[in-house]
């Protein structure tokens, strides 16, 4: 994790993120608005480096899938995981989660 001082005084950190999504036909995961590249179809996984600047980390998953599909989402930042599980109730929807940066050791 590399930290640097922002011009405005905020501290940003470049962190390594690993995500996986199992369930919907298509899905993408954004961490603080930054896309995490993934491969796969119904079972997808990927990783990448993103820049975080807030005390909270916003994770959004956008998906297309059949109603009733069970979705398992795992987000790991600096090796610390957060996991979510839910059932798709719309064919196209966004689920948003917010975690304290401290949960990831930031």
């Amino acid at each position, binding site marked *: 994790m590399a930290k640097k001082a922002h011009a405005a005084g905020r501290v940003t950190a470049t962190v390594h993120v690993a995500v996986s999504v199992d369930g919907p036909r298509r899905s993408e995961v954004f961490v603080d608005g930054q896309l995490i590249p993934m*491969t796969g*179809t*119904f*079972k997808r996984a990927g990783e990448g480096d993103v820049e975080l600047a807030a005390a909270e980390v916003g994770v959004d998953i*956008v998906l297309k899938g059949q*109603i009733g*599909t069970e979705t398992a989402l795992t987000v790991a930042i600096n090796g610390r995981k957060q996991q979510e599980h839910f*059932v798709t109730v719309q*064919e196209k929807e966004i689920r948003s989660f917010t975690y304290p940066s401290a949960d990831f050791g930031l």
Partner: protein
Amino acid sequence: MNRFTRGRSWLFAAALLVSAARSAAAQLAIPGAGEDRFGLLLAGQTISVTTGDARLAFNWTNDPHLTADDSCRQFQRGTPQYRDCLFRSVDTSQTFIDLTAGISGQKGERSLFANGTITPGYDLGVAVTRRLESASAHHGGYTDVYAGVIATSRPLTFATITPSGSATVADASERTVGLTTGVNFFLRENFAVGIGGGVKRAWSTPGLQKAMNVCTSTASGTTAAGQIVQVSTCDDGYTGPLADQWIDSVRLDVLKNFTRTKMDPASGDIVAVATVGVIGSVNVNHRTGTAAVYNLAVGPTLHPKGVPHKVLLAAVFGFADVSDAANQGKTLRDKFGVQLYFGVPLTGF
């Protein structure tokens, strides 16, 4: 001495089909009566079928990099612009490549193994699918446009009897090479209508013949009561000579899943319940010099709880050659068959 007796055809036949893909779960073949392959795609994989003859198939689909190019950080999280940006990321088109390979039993037989030996036939296929995503703000759905090449080879036995009475029994392989193309409209994630067509060239084919018993008498005698006793060895086969034909086909497929969710009173969460579906196919085949053959197939499917895009079990009722195109006197029993398909959860469950 050779003689022909009518053999069984279209009895209740069960076939096990195993499909494996690199990234998706085991996928089940969904049949269309009288067709070698079915047009619909599920989970991005080609659906291959058996039509009464036994077949074991493996399917591979490439693993496209689906991630979109959008970065949505330029928009404030939670704003309509941000949501639009996220939705765009799952609306990009993709291209799949499907490879299918299978082994099959001797044409006209219901088993991969006969008399303790395998009777290998094979089929190979490659198809390219372009998937166009729905850009609806609320609904899913997509359209698959596909085209591919299929080659098959099936061993068979045939007997030829000349007008003078001489007879021969020989083995041959029916070989086909063809092109197939079509469009599957997934109007919703759980409802699809597919149309497709194809043309192929067949060599050494028995055409529309029903499989019969080809028997060779190995011994004969007469009982004290004057009854003639014959000892014969028999094999399923056809009458010669075999022909080379063009085969064209058109089909219409329908798939519908009925997915249900409910509120868990204990946790207040939405939970999935078992999903059932129905699949149907109508196809018309035409061979050189023969009348068109109409085939129907319909049946229920059972999907894993909360995983409606995968199939655990399907029972498909098929009606082959509904109009008896060759006027062979086919009965309902000849035309009707039920096939059971079992999905094998290799991955993803």
